[in-house]
């Protein structure tokens, strides 16, 4: 066993060695984050030192901005040398920007920050390191000049994601962008988002169709996914043309339908879809669009309690209801959040319990019937808890290291 000399975990101790290591990431065919960081005033030594030490240098810091209780992330290195204050920023629905708006955001990042952004975290846009002495002014600049506001962190309504939907997607079955706009401005949501009063974070996601580009099935306390009723709509004429042109193979279309809903009549040259079986996989639609399109009767499937972080590991969303509009579900959203918070006061829900944990604790049936006052229509699929990690002893660790080294040999050749 190699004996490591323990050095104090400070930026200065490790920065030099780390800066050497970082050079490696400036080469290679893919655009480099290190190259980007170096174009800005970012204090890259903290990152470098972390890499050399095998530990992140960052610990929680603190900051105060008048009347702003969420949306900024304060950090300082463990040795106290460097501190940072990142701003999350509320994004327009769909994250589609005119260059005019983008330029304003760049001006903002240059004027108040270090000239660096994280363009799309799970939480939307983050402006890296606002200078604390101008943080107060920065908030006003965002509000008055850019036309948005500091975003969300902590135990509150977080970044809400909508797919690009009707702005640039043919498949959108409802207006995800408008739905997100309305959700954000719903009086209760709007009131909640200025404070941190929840047990943990709350997210909602709006996907226009079953492709679910926002990953609403897993990454949202409330997920809204566009669906249609029954069978996809077939334009037989157009489909025949596509078949003749060799663009679509009807036999394969039928064979690849995961629900076996499609039959092809080679005599009549007709494709039939059994709407009672269709699982809305989008397969035939993607392959033969626009000859095959989603059906005309459109709905929104609401799934609840999905999340990544939470006390008992990640969870997939559970089936709540199929509705005609997001508005129809707003009362349930409000009731869910209110009782989630209430149960924290009662001590049932603990800090860091997501809504999925809360539902797990009270039981899905009780949640649906007693808390929401609905009929329980569908039972959720149970699944193994989603998590990663292992507690290994040295022997097991060695076994896996040896297993991996065989593959390293296969791809990199034998170590000299």
């Amino acid at each position, binding site marked *: 066993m190699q004996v490591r000399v323990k050095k104090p975990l400070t930026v200065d101790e490790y920065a030099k060695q780390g800066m050497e290591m970082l050079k490696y990431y400036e080469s290679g065919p893919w655009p480099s984050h290190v190259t980007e960081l170096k*174009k800005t005033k970012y204090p890259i030594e903290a990152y470098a030192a972390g890499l050399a030490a095998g530990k992140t240098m960052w610990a929680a810091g603190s900051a105060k901005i008048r009347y702003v209780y969420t949306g900024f992330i304060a950090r300082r290195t463990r040795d106290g040398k460097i501190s940072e204050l990142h701003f999350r920023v509320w994004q327009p629905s769909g994250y589609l920007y005119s260059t005019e708006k983008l330029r304003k955001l760049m001006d903002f990042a240059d004027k108040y920050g270090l000239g660096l*952004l994280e363009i799309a975290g799970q939480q939307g846009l983050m402006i890296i390191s606002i200078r604390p002495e101008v943080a107060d002014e920065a908030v006003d600049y965002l509000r008055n000049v850019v*036309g948005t506001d500091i975003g969300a962190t902590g135990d509150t309504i977080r970044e809400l994601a909508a797919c690009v939907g009707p702005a640039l997607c043919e498949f959108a079955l409802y207006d995800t962008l408008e739905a997100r706009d309305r959700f954000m401005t719903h009086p209760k949501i*709007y009131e909640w988002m200025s404070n941190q009063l929840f047990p943990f974070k709350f997210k909602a996601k709006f996907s226009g169709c079953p492709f679910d580009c926002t990953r609403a*099935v897993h990454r949202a306390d409330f997920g809204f996914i566009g669906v249609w009723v029954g069978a996809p709509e077939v334009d037989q004429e157009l489909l025949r043309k596509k078949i003749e042109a060799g663009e679509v193979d009807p036999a394969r279309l039928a064979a690849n339908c*995961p629900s076996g809903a499609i039959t092809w009549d080679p005599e009549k040259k007709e494709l039939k879809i059994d709407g009672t079986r269709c699982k809305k996989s989008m*397969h035939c639609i993607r392959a033969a669009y626009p000859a095959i399109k989603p059906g005309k009767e459109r709905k929104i499937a609401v799934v609840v309690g999905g999340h990544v*972080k939470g006390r008992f590991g990640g969870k997939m969303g559970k089936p709540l209801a199929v509705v005609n509009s997001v508005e129809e579900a707003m009362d349930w959203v409000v009731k869910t959040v209110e009782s989630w918070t209430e149960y924290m006061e009662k001590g049932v829900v603990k800090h860091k319990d997501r809504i999925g944990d809360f539902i797990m604790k009270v039981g899905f049936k009780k949640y649906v019937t007693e808390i929401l006052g609905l009929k329980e229509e569908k039972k959720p699929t149970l699944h193994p808890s989603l998590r990663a990690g292992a507690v290994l002893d040295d022997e097991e660790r060695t076994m896996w290291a040896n297993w991996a080294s065989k593959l390293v040999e296969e791809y*990199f050749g034998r170590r000299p």
Partner: protein
Amino acid sequence: MTADPVAQRLQKRLPVPYTEWLPELVRRNVGKWVDRRFHGYGIIEHISSTGDRVFTVKVGTPPNFRMSTETMRKFIDIADKLGIGGIKITRNGNLEILTDSLDKAVKIKEEVEKMGFPVGGWGPTLWSINSCTAFLTCTTAVVDAPSITKVLYDHLKPYFTGEVKLPAKLRINVSGCPSSCGGFTSDINIVGHYGDAPTYDPERVKLCLPRSAKALEAGHVPEVAEVCPTGAIKVYGKPDGTVGLDVIRSKCIACGRCRDVCDWMDFDESKIGVAILVGGKASNTGRGSMPSIQVIPWVPAIPPEYREIVAVVKKIIDVWRANAREGERIGDWIARVGMEQFYKLLEIPVTKWNKPVAISGEFGIRQFGPI
């Protein structure tokens, strides 16, 4: 009521309606898109019922989507010069530059490639590698996701550009710690962890504990113990009246939640590694949405090259390419052939941390049955 005008900040200035943020050509065509065409792996044409067309050029971005304003301004200039004055940032951190003709789209592609940025990430390709911030910002990171992501991208770039074809879409997530900020719905999911129960800095961990044992008597459970899902953290009063903390190794599942709330929980950096999970997807295609499942509990994470991680990821992709049918994502393929077969092909040893789980039932909207 306060007269302080700053108090108005309590009323958020939200970027609504979204139409105010759109480039003009898109604003005119909201809800009117009727068809799409593909021109290679990174250029997509959207056709509106008004006859308008928008072409998007999809650009790969650096790990953790970190970008200097200097580089962003270059993209913005391109979007003005050759495009319609609009850029979309995708959920996975790619940039889509919008224009109105194929000619201009091809020119944008050239300009972007000249800057050293790849175009691709659509269709049966690697769409993006989603990396958390890890050592760049995060307090709980165990491994540095952005540098792992960079190395993976360097090795897998031909899968992004479409030079080498894949059976179906591939999405990779890299998370720096078991909090798994990348989520569980990616085809290959790499998650850093300690490889053991956490340790702690005995002095500094006191910052996460009440100062006096009296608080415990009153029934208070400090958050660092409270968040542990398995009760592996015990706090107790010491004879000198202060509070002590113990981690019961046999109960710990290395979930990292204690470290998530207490910066002074610690680990032995010689044991760090990553777990590899496979088969997750959000989309309802194929077998439907599925979570990714841990198949390899630990391989070492050794910077700067991370050879072990690269080799395992390449192997998974190669085995998938050799065995899957066209259009089958990793999870769909594994669901068809069975987890046991997947283990066999990769010669993965089975231990208590990666017992093959048979997922039964369906997720997402399929739980509703036929709609």
